[in-house]
């Protein structure tokens, strides 16, 4: 019953998830077990890149859930992603121990530089993995809860909501740039050594992280499917299409928006936490408003309002980004902007919608 509802009734999702699962199995094998001179060998670079894309796909999923289904345009999802990343970063920093440049048993290098004597209270507990992971979920979730409660209660919607989320992520960026915050200022957190005892520079760890990202993506996808196929999911679509009708049908619209927003923020945070060990650094630049806008472009390109569309969008736009920033870095931003305009004008349902149209045409012939 549940399998039918979550997977079998969603053909596009089945294909995309199947590819993700296949990738998570085949790529690590080709990377670890195949000799480097074989034509089937997959380079470490590719493994890292795919791992990153998987995190972005999870992030796109969280944006799609809130934008595509509830119609709430958040231009601040980068804030939740980055906060999740900082949570993981703090755990990884505590794992360094006395292997830092200054060899202090407890303090981070940047704290030694600032002449701090003791560990700030909010760094306590992050040496434990479970605690760090709990914080990865709770801190962004709580921020979304408070922020969303204030915004939705005042019935802030549409463009106004988008603007204040943008302000939120910008404010966080400015705050995290400050050294006094105790998160490493503009250098952020880096120079990580190991995670759960596995060396981060080892190929097997990297492959493991990629597999973990793929699993997180699949589970996140199924959770989102569970929500959108439930009665709650239909209420959410109803809110998107006719908010006051939903309210006069007896639904407390605000609390639906709020809990969906919180869930979406936590999903973004998980993506951030998986992203950081794979790229080896987290700094306040990730909070930059531009990043949050890019996420929206991924979703728009893939096709908002279909969950697998978000995954397609995240992979295709990021692949294009890697390609173009390698060959002509200056043009990338123009391409991104142009893409957004083109998609909005000519492909309102994104790549997925386009593919669907072509398939239907093929069927008719």
């Amino acid at each position: 019953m549940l399998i039918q509802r979550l997977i079998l009734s969603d053909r596009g999702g089945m294909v995309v998830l199947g590819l993700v699962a296949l990738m998570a199995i085949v790529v690590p094998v080709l990377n670890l077990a195949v000799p480097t001179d074989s034509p089937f060998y997959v380079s470490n670079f590719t493994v890292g890149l795919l791992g990153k894309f998987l995190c972005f796909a999870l992030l796109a999923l969280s944006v799609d859930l809130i934008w595509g289904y509830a119609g709430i345009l958040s231009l601040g999802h980068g804030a939740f992603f980055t906060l999740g990343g900082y949570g993981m970063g703090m755990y990884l920093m505590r794992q360094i121990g006395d292997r830092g440049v200054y060899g202090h048993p407890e303090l981070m290098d940047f704290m030694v530089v600032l002449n701090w004597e003791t560990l700030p209270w909010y760094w306590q507990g992050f040496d434990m993995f479970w605690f760090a992971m709990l914080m990865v979920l709770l801190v962004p979730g709580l921020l979304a809860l408070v922020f969303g409660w204030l915004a939705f209660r005042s019935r802030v919607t549409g463009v106004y909501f988008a603007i204040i989320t943008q302000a939120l992520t910008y404010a966080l960026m400015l705050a995290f740039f400050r050294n006094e915050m105790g998160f490493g200022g503009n250098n952020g957190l880096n120079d990580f050594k190991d995670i759960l005892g596995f060396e981060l520079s080892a190929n097997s760890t990297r492959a493991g992280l990629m597999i973990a990202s793929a699993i997180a993506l699949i589970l996140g996808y199924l959770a989102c499917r569970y929500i959108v196929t439930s009665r709650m999911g239909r209420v959410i679509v109803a809110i998107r299409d006719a908010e006051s009708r939903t309210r006069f049908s007896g639904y407390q619209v605000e609390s639906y928006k709020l809990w969906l927003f919180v869930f979406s923020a936590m999903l973004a945070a998980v993506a951030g936490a998986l992203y950081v060990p794979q790229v080896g650094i987290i700094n306040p630049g990730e909070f930059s408003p531009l990043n949050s806008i890019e996420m929206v472009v991924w979703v728009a390109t893939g096709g908002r309002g279909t969950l697998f569309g978000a995954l397609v969008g995240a992979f295709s736009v990021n692949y294009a980004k890697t390609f173009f920033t390698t060959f002509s870095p200056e043009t990338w931003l123009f391409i991104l902007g142009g893409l957004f305009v083109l998609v909005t004008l000519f492909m309102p349902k994104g790549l997925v919608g386009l593919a669907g149209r072509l398939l239907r045409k093929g069927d008719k012939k």
Partner: protein
Amino acid sequence: MKTTEQLRETWRRDQVFDFVQPAPAFDSVVDTTHGPILYVENISVSFDGFKALNNLDLYIDDGELRCIIGPNGAGKTTMMDVITGKTKPDSGSIWFGQRIDLLKRSEHEIARGGIGRKFQKPTVFEALSVFENLELATASRKNVWYTLNHDLSGEQRDRIDEVLRQIGLTEHYHQEAGALSHGQKQWLEIGMLLVQNPRVLLVDEPVAGMTGEEVEKTAELLTSLAGRHSVIVVEHDMAFVRSIARKVTVLHQGSVLAEGSMDQVQNNPRVIEVYLGE
């Protein structure tokens, strides 16, 4: 001084106070022992100095079908906004039955509690199917967690089937609501009110833009609802009002100008002056 007076007031023994009684819950039976189900008293609303409602008094009996007419700007839609909790009045009171103060409730509570509202422009959830539209409106627990984990019960589905027959959309139940005709959307919205099991239905211009045949069908539907529900219809179409009305209230400049049967109202010189005599 004031507190002592209040204290003394509460010691009087010839009176029952609300707070000694169990709190009035919306899900309990609405107390209509005195006749009316809706008491709208002395309601005033102004927007930037313009008085949309001016000391409006209106009593709706349980099971009654009431038509409300009036020229544009008479305050008909504002009145609905106030009853359903969308607009808070500057003064006055609205009671649902004897004991429920509607001004203290929010929109979704009022809707769950048994007051359904149809908008002027047909408003349905266009991306969802006809069945799903009714499913969402169906009376049930409507909090986030419950809707995430529970589907409708068999009884609720039966009720939806019944309403589908009533509004004549049984064959269309699978169809996307956005693809329905204008009249069918109007009926679907009325159906969405019905599955809420409301005590009071507020219907704003139900026949606007309908063909003659559709108007007739709508009139039939609304009159069949009276008795089981109290129905308040706001309408411009006088022929339609005449065909369904038993009692008509004429609003003018935010207050009641006349009330009575259609004939009485039509012969009222003041009504002729402001409205019918145009």
